[in-house]
């Protein structure tokens, strides 16, 4: 069972490194493996995101890729949303939270599927070398 967990983490890490959310893979796998319930699976996503994101931000900052002028307009709202959301995750009954997560996953999945299909054509124009970012 541990091997499955390590494999799930490894795959999610690969996806995050590509800019595709690892959580969308991690939460369903952890649930299916019976290793976590909805809230603890989401907690795993949050916690495992922190060190990777921290390292990535330092790298992006050195490359001057962070648009600092946007941060004051975004951060206060985002933090307010996060507090409300995290409190809501503790307050909502688990099946409800799972239903909302499922609906959100369907929406994002549809978006990923469509943009993935249209991505090849668009991206080969803007990045002739085949790279996507960085």
């Amino acid at each position, binding site marked *: 069972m541990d091997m499955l967990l390590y494999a*799930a*983490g*490894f*795959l*999610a*890490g*690969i996806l*995050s*490194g*590509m800019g*595709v*959310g*690892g*959580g*969308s893979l*991690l939460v*369903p796998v952890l649930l299916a493996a019976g*290793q976590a319930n909805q*809230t603890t699976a*989401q*907690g795993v996503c*949050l*916690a*495992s995101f922190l060190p*990777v*994101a921290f390292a990535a*931000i330092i790298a*992006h900052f050195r*490359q001057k*890729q*962070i*648009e600092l002028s946007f941060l004051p307009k*975004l951060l206060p709202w*985002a933090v*307010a*949303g*996060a*507090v*409300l*959301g*995290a409190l*809501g*995750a503790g307050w909502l009954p688990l*099946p409800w939270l799972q239903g909302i997560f499922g*609906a*959100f*996953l*369907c929406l*994002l*999945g*549809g978006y*990923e*599927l469509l*943009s*993935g299909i249209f991505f*090849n054509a668009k*991206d080969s124009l803007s990045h002739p*070398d085949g790279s996507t*970012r*960085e």
Partner: protein
Amino acid sequence: MDRMKSHWTSSALFLGLTGFAAGLANGLLGSGGGTLLVPVLASCRHLEQHKAHATTLCVILPTAVISAFIYAKNGFMDWPLILKITLSGILGGVTGALILPKVPTGWLRAALGCFMLISGGKMLWTCFFMPPGF
């Protein structure tokens, strides 16, 4: 119509609302906030993909820190599980960054989109049809 739309999506209010939605998603569902924010910054604010990605990380990391803190207070953090996933996730992230130029990202995103639609649909189904107490 088109002009009105572009005016609205480039307003500070729209940016703030998107930030709020991203924070809310990240707090309530543990992930997914960045997936909302990157396309908005890229298409409505005309940031290039790398900058949109880097700026989004800068917004999402603080929301993840606050959400993780609230999750921990609620007892949603399974630290041994988090350790396993984080360690393998870091390995996966490095691997992903190395193999990124060689991977057909479009098809990968399409495949992940399919996985998200299936697992999201399954979670919705569970939410509506599982007996209470699940």
